[in-house]
């Protein structure tokens, strides 16, 4: 019996030690690794898909995805977005993500935002080096300025540390607009896509989350990059 007890103790201690070793393996410790998000809801539609999850820290996130491997994939996504117009409320403010066909100069962008009555949350810019390398810059309004030039110039200075680069302009913008303006926005010649999936996903989640659905952060891969890659900038849907 003593023999059994000794074996038992040794094996038990070994097991516990192994667990402790695993816990302290470097590189496995991180803020998010090992935590498990909870699925709230996912949806499959023609041309796109979304997955909405609640993170262990409570953050609500949804990722919109589409087939990025082909021209047809992006085309289907664009067409699907146009169809969403009919499935969203006809009044009030709507979250949109607009992709332009070409980079828009800062001045023109400011005028465009003003004329469309858009409340801007964030935007994406493109800069290109003399070697043709593409840089993507993410920015947001600050202190009442739509494009705070000091922040933009700081980013450009960092980029130029690796070679001369020019700012091409704004290629996409996220914000909210009056629902009544969506159709006219879709028809603008500078606009490639008015992405309505953020509003649609939040609407899908409302029965489950109530008002919290408005807090869901909806993210998606970069439409401008793939539009450019597949030569679709002059295509209308």
């Amino acid at each position: 019996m003593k023999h059994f007890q000794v074996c038992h103790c040794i094996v038990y201690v070994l097991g516990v030690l192994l667990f402790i070793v695993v816990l302290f393996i470097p590189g496995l410790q991180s803020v998010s690794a090992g935590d498990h998000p909870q699925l709230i809801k996912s949806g499959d539609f023609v041309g796109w898909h979304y997955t909405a999850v609640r993170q262990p820290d409570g953050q609500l996130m949804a990722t919109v995805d589409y087939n990025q491997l082909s021209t047809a994939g992006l085309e289907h996504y664009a067409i699907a977005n146009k169809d969403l117009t009919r499935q969203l409320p006809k009044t009030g403010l709507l979250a949109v993500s607009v992709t332009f066909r070409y980079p828009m100069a800062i001045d023109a962008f400011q005028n465009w935002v003003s004329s469309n009555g858009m409340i801007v949350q964030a935007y994406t810019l493109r800069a290109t080096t003399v070697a043709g390398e593409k840089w993507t810059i993410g920015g947001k309004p600050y202190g009442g300025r739509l494009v705070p030039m000091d922040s933009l110039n700081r980013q450009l200075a960092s980029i130029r540390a690796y070679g001369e680069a020019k700012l091409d302009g704004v290629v996409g913008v996220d914000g909210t607009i009056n629902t009544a303006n969506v159709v006219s926005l879709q028809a603008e010649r500078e606009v490639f896509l008015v992405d309505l999936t953020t509003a649609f996903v939040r609407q899908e989640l409302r029965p489950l989350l109530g008002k919290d659905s408005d807090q869901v952060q909806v993210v998606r891969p970069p439409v401008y990059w793939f539009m450019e890659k597949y030569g679709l900038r002059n295509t209308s849907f």
Partner: protein
Amino acid sequence: MKLLNFAQAVHRGNRQITGAMLLAVVGLIISVSAAAAWQFSILFTHNSPYNESNNYPYGSTAYYGQLDADTGTSKYLAEGSWIEWNQAAINWILSNRGGSWSSNEFQVAIVFHAFLPNSQTCANVGIDWWASNLPGAWAYQRSNCELREFAGDPTQLSTSGNYYAQIQYADQSGGANGEINIDNYWVDTQWQTVSHRDWMGKFCYGNGRVWQPTNGNCP
């Protein structure tokens, strides 16, 4: 009766040993899988190893801080610099990126965290701007202190490319000390979970200044 008690004792003893052995085996399996995952991340080892050198521009991370004269806000810019993937890593990325629905569900990302000193607690900061030359670059905030910058189009990754990812934080604590960590992760963009961490570096900040950690710690 004694024989029966002895048999029960042996049976109970065996059950305890079986339980302990099971625990040990489970521990062993977890250890081996964890080690395997760690070895996997070797595929993300870069041609130029990361370190904490501030030998800009040859170092693998770059950073600076400044006190914004207009607003009195401290701004900190961090950068993962001269990032390279070898061909084996690119091949691995391309052959493992598909998920259950998406063709591009798993993506490589440069991830920035601003923490309180020597902790994993978010510092009181806001994320201002970001920039990257990663192909198909896009980014989102995972929390108020964490930004993930993705290579959204890994088909365009090149072994001859040097890639960069930058972030600008705005302090909201009135100049308190903190640290900014830069890592490379393999991210499931649907579930937002991360794996295959490749640590790139960290630096300390406070009151508009930045400095290197001492023995890995920030005061």
